């Protein structure tokens, strides 16, 4: 019994780490850059497939491709924001109009990225084995790659949290999140900061994709499911709260793991049910204001 509980809890934490990473990325894009990025999951998929290609075709260790995929996805996100979303932001009359048009644009991106991936990599399910040896955690047995994924997710999220809390640029980002107009008046280069946030969001999605590809099978249409989970976690944690998204990821992971243990068919239904109940009871999320 105790081993079962341990099993369920650890499985939940392992999944939760990845959820947290995805949600922190989306939270940054929506909370600061004001883009509800429906194509968030596509960056996850890109990260996953890039890692898969590098590993199976060139034999590059997935943890080494971190150094390749990360910057590439970051630059793609940064450029996308500098060209597409900045243009939309400056031409939109109000922030509500911008939220609408950027949502539409991110939809377009979803179709574009997903279908390019389908053309390049095909519709098959792909997987590779890396660090798949079992590790015993007090009786519960897990593959080593999941533990690596969890620790990477935590390290990246923590590093980012410290970056936000301690550096000058982090302060600029927090200021832009609170009030972009005033932040710009105080000398924050707002276009640069928002594009950076979007790039960081994409970077986290890409890293999450890399970690996902180490543990789970991947395919070109996997993105939207992860986007929806990220949206749920962001709302669960409270919009604009990085810490909230981080904790929310683990909560959702745990809930998913418990429900999967009870009845695997109901885990996704449980996510939505919790999400709907949460919106009704406390729409600002656990750490929202």
């Amino acid at each position: 019994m105790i081993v079962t509980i341990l099993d369920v809890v650890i499985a939940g934490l392992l999944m939760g780490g990845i959820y947290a990473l995805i949600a922190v990325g989306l939270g940054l894009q929506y909370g600061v850059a004001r883009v509800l990025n429906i194509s968030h999951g596509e960056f996850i998929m890109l990260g996953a497939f890039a890692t898969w290609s590098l590993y199976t075709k060139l034999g590059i260790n997935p943890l080494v491709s971190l150094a390749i995929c990360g910057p590439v996805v970051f630059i793609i996100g940064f450029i996308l924001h500098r060209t597409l979303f900045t243009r939309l932001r400056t031409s939109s009359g109000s922030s509500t109009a911008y939220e609408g048009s950027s949502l539409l644009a991110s939809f377009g991106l979803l179709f574009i990225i997903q279908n390019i991936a389908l053309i390049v990599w095909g519709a098959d399910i792909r997987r590779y084995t890396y660090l798949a040896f079992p590790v015993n955690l007090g009786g519960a047995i897990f593959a080593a790659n999941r533990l690596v994924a969890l620790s990477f997710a935590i390290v990246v999220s923590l590093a980012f949290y410290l970056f936000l809390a301690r550096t000058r640029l982090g302060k600029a980002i927090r200021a832009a999140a609170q009030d972009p107009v005033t932040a710009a008046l105080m000398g924050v280069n707002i276009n640069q900061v928002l594009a950076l946030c979007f790039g960081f969001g994409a970077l986290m999605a890409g890293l999450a994709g890399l970690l996902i590809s180490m543990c789970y099978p991947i395919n070109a249409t996997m993105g939207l499911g992860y986007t929806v989970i990220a949206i749920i976690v962001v709302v669960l944690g409270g919009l604009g709260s990085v810490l909230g998204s981080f904790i929310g990821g683990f909560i959702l992971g745990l809930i998913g793991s418990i429900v999967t243990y009870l009845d695997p068919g109901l885990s996704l239904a449980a996510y939505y049910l919790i999400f709907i109940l949460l919106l009704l009871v406390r729409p600002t999320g656990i750490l929202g204001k």
Partner: protein
Amino acid sequence: MNIAGIISKRSFLPGLLFLILILLSALPLYAPTYTVILLTAILMYIILTVSWAIFSGPTGYTSLASAAFFGVGIYTSAILGKSLPLPVVIGIGGLASFMLALLVGAVTLRLRGIYFAVFTFGLVELIKRLLLWWEMTITRTRGRFVIIVDNNTIYYVMLGIFVVTLLIAYFIRRSKFGLALQSIGEDEEAAAHTGINVTAIKIVTFAISAVFVGAAGAIIATRWTYIDPYIAFNPLLSFMPVLMAILGGMGQFYGPILGAAVFAYLEEILITRFPYYYMLLFGIILVVAVLYLPNGLVGLVQKWRKGGLKRQNANA
């Protein structure tokens, strides 16, 4: 060539609409089957988009629940289609969607902005997952077969729903009711203070807009012959009406109609010409349209008409 002058004459527009309606209702007599099927799809998208715009247009609440209402209609048709006559099935499909919208509206319309959008999207997924679970563990079947109806009947039913949807949407927009909705969209607090029963109006409008979506789902299900939760509750059908309405332009009544018609036709052309790249092209068109058509197709039409007027004035 005083085109703008003719268009602005009051008797011209109703006459034109009547002519279009006659042409549409006689369509199966002179057009090939392919055209009938294509027009059925276009009419369906217009119904979905206009229904969405009835509620979400004036109030500014972005609903992503279309797929839920649509799916409820589809499942009604699948469950009752064999035992009841078609008109009754379609009526029940609309009614079931109405009840669902009433329920959802009563609990959720206190949510605002992005929360409402995400909630309604969650609803679609929740119903889909519960149905999947139900089919897998309780009935141990996957999907259902729907009784087949011939293409022309489907077309005429769709045309009927289309006409009713447009009429209701038009009258809501022109009535005091529509004004109340508009003022809710402008400022909900202020609307409540002027004596509008904000909650009741929102819920009723939301529920009315769901009826047509449910009815359209009930009739289109007979074309698909086989359905399962993935087909019936396809999230794309929640997003399409939003995209089509915004790309058409929300400022005018005909914006969503124009948007739905153009993009449904475009989708069909892309699917048949470029079966492998059509979603890619659709995405590119979407991004380009968002960038260069900020007021939708309506904005383009207005610009063009203004340009025409200017040229006339210059000539005069």
